[in-house]
């Protein structure tokens, strides 16, 4: 997004334009690089099966990360998505007995509400987003446990129901969730780049005061992003439940960190005011690839797995930053 990434000077030449291009797509470059290496190193990496796996595995995180990107661009953060994701799954599985629509609407309603509450608290009472959504994290998890009797009962999705197919069906090898994820990203991109609301996200994230002095409805914008984040986390949870055909109670722990990592790897600034969805998508896929590669190596014991993925993370982010280097004049 030209309008979100600092270019070297006011009147850049061709080389700058090229540099800026790489900058914008630093994450993509790293992704392609990584994938290429992996394909070379592991015969079974490049296979169609494996591609399908990575795609479907990443699609849920992708949907959550989309919401997170909106929140972070607007200068906030949302720690509650992990719990909300789990809650959405449980609710969806619970409602799936009444058919597809309830199975989607119930989680969206509840999770959207949680998001809205987060948003109102952040926007109206000047409490730090970190704390508000941390409370959201606890609250949603608590609610989940309450619904499931301290997690002792797991709701099941009726076999072969339309809802189940939504999560398990495939089209030319890729699961439906993959297409849904792509769809919401396309939509999100449009909103972010081509609507006033989208643009004002960048403004609010860039400088809240400037935004309000320019007469933008700051509070409303904030509430909207948290609402969106809640909705998307809920949607992802529901789809996941459909795929697992049950409302698993132990899901989503630490998901918020994955989402944040994906967003930031994608080149979005945590202080807000700049970011791209394409970057986030690359970030998500990068995490997926890292995970997959670790499994390709096989026979790594869990401790080494963490070490390796930590190391990968550093490498990726450092590479991304150096590619995305932007020198500031002022």
């Amino acid at each position, binding site marked *: 997004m030209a309008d979100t990434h600092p270019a070297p000077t006011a009147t850049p030449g061709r080389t700058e334009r090229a540099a800026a291009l790489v900058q914008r797509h630093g994450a993509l470059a790293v992704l392609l690089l990584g994938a290429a290496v992996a394909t070379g190193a592991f015969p079974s990496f490049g296979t169609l099966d494996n591609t399908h796996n990575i795609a479907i595995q990443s699609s849920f995180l992708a949907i959550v990360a989309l919401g997170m990107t909106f929140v972070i661009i*607007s*200068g*906030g*953060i949302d720690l509650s998505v992990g719990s909300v994701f789990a809650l959405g799954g449980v609710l969806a599985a619970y409602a799936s007995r009444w058919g597809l629509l309830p199975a989607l609407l119930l989680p969206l309603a509840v999770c959207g509400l949680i998001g809205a509450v987060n948003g109102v*608290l*952040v926007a109206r*009472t*000047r*409490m*730090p*987003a*970190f*704390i*508000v959504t*941390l*409370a*959201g*994290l*606890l*609250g949603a*998890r*608590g*609610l*989940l*446990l*309450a619904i499931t009797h*301290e997690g002792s009962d797991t709701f099941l999705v009726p076999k072969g129901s339309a809802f189940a197919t939504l999560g398990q069906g495939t089209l030319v090898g890729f699961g439906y969730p993959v297409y849904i994820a792509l769809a919401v990203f396309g939509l999100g991109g449009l909103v972010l780049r081509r609507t006033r609301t989208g643009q004002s996200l960048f403004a*609010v*994230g*860039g*400088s*809240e*005061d*400037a935004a309000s*002095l320019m007469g933008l409805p700051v509070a409303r914008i*904030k509430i909207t992003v948290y609402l969106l984040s809640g909705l998307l986390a809920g949607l992802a949870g529901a789809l996941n439940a459909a795929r697992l055909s049950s409302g698993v109670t132990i899901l989503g722990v630490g998901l918020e*960190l994955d989402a*944040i*990592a994906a967003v*930031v790897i994608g080149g979005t*600034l*945590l*202080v*807000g005011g700049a970011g791209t969805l394409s970057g986030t998508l690359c970030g998500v896929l990068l995490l997926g690839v890292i995970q997959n590669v670790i499994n390709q190596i096989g026979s790594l*014991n*869990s*401790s*080494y*797995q*963490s*070490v*390796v*993925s*930590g*190391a990968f*993370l*550093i490498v990726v*982010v*450092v590479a991304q*930053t150096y590619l995305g280097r932007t020198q500031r004049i002022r």
Partner: protein
Amino acid sequence: MTDLAATTSTAAPVADRRHIARYLPGYGVYAAVAALLAFNAAFTDHFLTVGNLRTQLIQVAPVVIVALGMALVIGTEGVDLSVGSVMALAAAVLPLYLGYGAVPAIAVALVAGVAVGAVNGALVAVVGLQPIVATLALFVGGRGLALVLADGQLKQLHNAALLAIGSDDVLGVPAVVLIAAALAVAVGFVVRGTTFGRQLVAIGGNRVASQLAGLPVRRVLCCTYIACGVFAALAGVLATARLNASDPSALGNLMELSAITAVVVGGTPLSGGRVRVLGTVVGALLMQLVRATLIKHDLPDSTAQMAQAVIILVAVYVARERKSR
């Protein structure tokens, strides 16, 4: 984060009640703690006993220590997610060197903290990564490393000197509590009274300006993260001593959240440019009391978590900066 823009800009409207608002964040926590103490005194059996209060202090000590380091990092507009893993790392190295005696082992553990802190600092200050990802890497890798060192095993410890730190009293006060208190005082002084402390806060307040004013931005940042690492390592040592065992798999899980919460509940803005030490200590105490209360009244996990959420919100709400005009 969002409130950054708001709290650190000249244009931000400021109220007549400004001066109150400026101190109120501190008081917010104190009020909450007082309220909670009162509640427990009334409705919890055996709460106001020496033994119980000791327990609370002992349990909160490691959190306080980590939170102090975290407060410094947050003061620079950063955050350190790796503290929990550092605790695990410290716990993991301890037994490896206990053969040389407690002191060397502890020294090595602290060095581990320095190492992690240095890496974080370098990634943030030199490479220029955003703190949250920079430290996320070691949050993931650090614990893994700890488990590698201990090959996943929990080790029973028998070294008397080490265990003593966890269990002994000095003039009637548990050693761990004394250590935490001493550190709190020390950090308080550093922040208020030393060039390092002031420069730290300045950098958190406006990094560009600090750079132009010739402040050693990189050095200060590195030192801050190193300090945070050391504190976390120390907390890991104390927790291990208390546990009589080195348990790298579980030790310090979710510590980063507890620490950050303590700091923020204590009235330090995540936007940096300010460090409130006493508030941090009290913030940690508040969260400890909350947890204790919920356990003592044997609430099921579901209710407990929701209650915790509400209490955090209320505490921070009273403590928040009023943006009234």
